């Protein structure tokens, strides 16, 4: 399996990468770590590509910062390996470090990025669900001005995002709001193997308590629709209520009723929906157990 012929351009700045992307249009593709793009090129799944625009040499894209009162800023080139092992991420938002660790293998995490994981837009991407539950936003650079895109608007279909290719739009950063006292989050991946496997389903939860009751919450489900999905009905049941085992079961049932899984080689649709019920309960429980005091 050799690569088709293409030109590789290691862009030195966002402007250079974006301008070149506008000029080449559908004949080009951006590449950060390359762990998704290179297999797609080898399998000839990216038709008519004659230019690969490397982003690795753009220095400002590699960062991992935490600002008190705001949250975590993850640069587009920051490796999943760095996110998984960062003491800062592990302390401030352990579920994000866990989600990064769930991706593929250590070799892939040393090259692959979180920005690439979401830009590739697989419905079962491990980092997508936790970003959706934690209300992250995606910052971009584009000709005529970049944007801040709420993660809920970012995914538009299987392998599709709202990024505008004709404007040479590039993801520059992912921002995740900090967990405040009384807030917790968790992500669970259900897969056959512990590593190097795609999720059968994944469920992430973010919960904010107000006294004994749920003040607010978000539940995100991966691998059960064309994009990662929010379980809005389950969230509605939880908001304003006291957490009991019965309520968790009801929320799990609601979530499994609002996902749209398919049957494939990894699992049947029925099994996926039932696992959404189970893992919704587990994610909420873990979010509560790991809540910031």
């Amino acid at each position, binding site marked *: *399996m050799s*690569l088709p012929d293409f*030109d*590789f351009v290691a862009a030195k700045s966002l402007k250079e990468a974006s301008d070149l992307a506008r000029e080449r249009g559908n004949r080009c593709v951006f590449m950060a770590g390359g762990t998704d793009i290179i297999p797609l090129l*080898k399998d000839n799944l990216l038709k008519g590509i004659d230019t*690969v625009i490397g982003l690795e040499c753009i220095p400002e894209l590699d960062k991992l910062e935490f600002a008190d009162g705001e949250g975590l800023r993850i640069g587009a080139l920051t490796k999943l390996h760095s996110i998984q092992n960062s003491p800062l991420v592990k302390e401030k938002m352990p579920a994000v470090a866990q989600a990064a660790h769930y991706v593929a293998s*250590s*070799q892939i995490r*040393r*090259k692959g990025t979180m920005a690439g994981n979401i830009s590739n837009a697989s419905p079962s991407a491990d980092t997508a669900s936790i970003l959706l539950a934690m209300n992250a936003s995606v910052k971009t650079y584009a000709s005529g001005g970049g944007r801040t895109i709420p993660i809920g608007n970012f995914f538009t279909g299987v392998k599709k995002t709202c990024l505008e290719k004709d404007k040479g739009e590039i993801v520059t950063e992912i921002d995740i709001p900090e967990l405040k006292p009384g807030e917790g989050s968790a992500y669970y991946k259900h897969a056959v193997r512990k590593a190097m496997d795609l999720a059968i389903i994944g469920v992430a939860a973010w919960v904010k308590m107000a006294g004994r009751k749920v003040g607010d919450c978000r539940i995100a489900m991966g691998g059960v629709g064309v994009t990662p999905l929010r379980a809005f009905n389950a969230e509605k049941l939880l908001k304003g209520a006291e957490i009991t085992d019965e309520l968790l079961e009801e929320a799990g049932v609601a979530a499994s009723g609002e996902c749209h899984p398919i049957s494939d080689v990894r699992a049947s649709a029925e099994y996926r929906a039932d696992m959404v019920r189970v893992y919704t309960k587990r994610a909420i429980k873990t979010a509560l157990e790991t809540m910031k005091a």
Partner: protein
Amino acid sequence: MKRIIRFKLNGEEVEEYVQDSITMCDFLRKQMHLSGTKRGCEEGECGACTILLDGGAIDSCLMLAAEADGHEIVTIEGVMKDGVLHPLQREFMDKWALQCGFCTPGMIMSALSLLNENPHPTELEIRDGIAGNLCRCTGYAKIVEAIGAAAEVMEREARA
């Protein structure tokens, strides 16, 4: 297109004329004649092509050779120093951690990267470190044992 890249390969500065659309794995094997890096699944599943990029293990089938410009690459051929096998290589032999040997270079590169970062890994950390490397012969038990033993040897040698 072709370009000139300059990078460090197994400790030596090299300058090579490379095709843009060649993977690091194919470049190492075909152009540098370093065939210790194996071509397995070619999509990052099997880890047979694992090398070190700036000290960390990556799949060379998922990297373009052109990306190496300005970086440091170590392959299995660069692990032995001054004619002396690395403790990982010795322990793989002593513990019978290989049968057909096809996965071994990749296993050793992943283990090397793990021990660089974490000199005292637990069994679980060792298993996580080689989760991206498939072995179809050994059942992994001997490999995990050999990496644990090499970590101990390396610690002893560092203290001596």
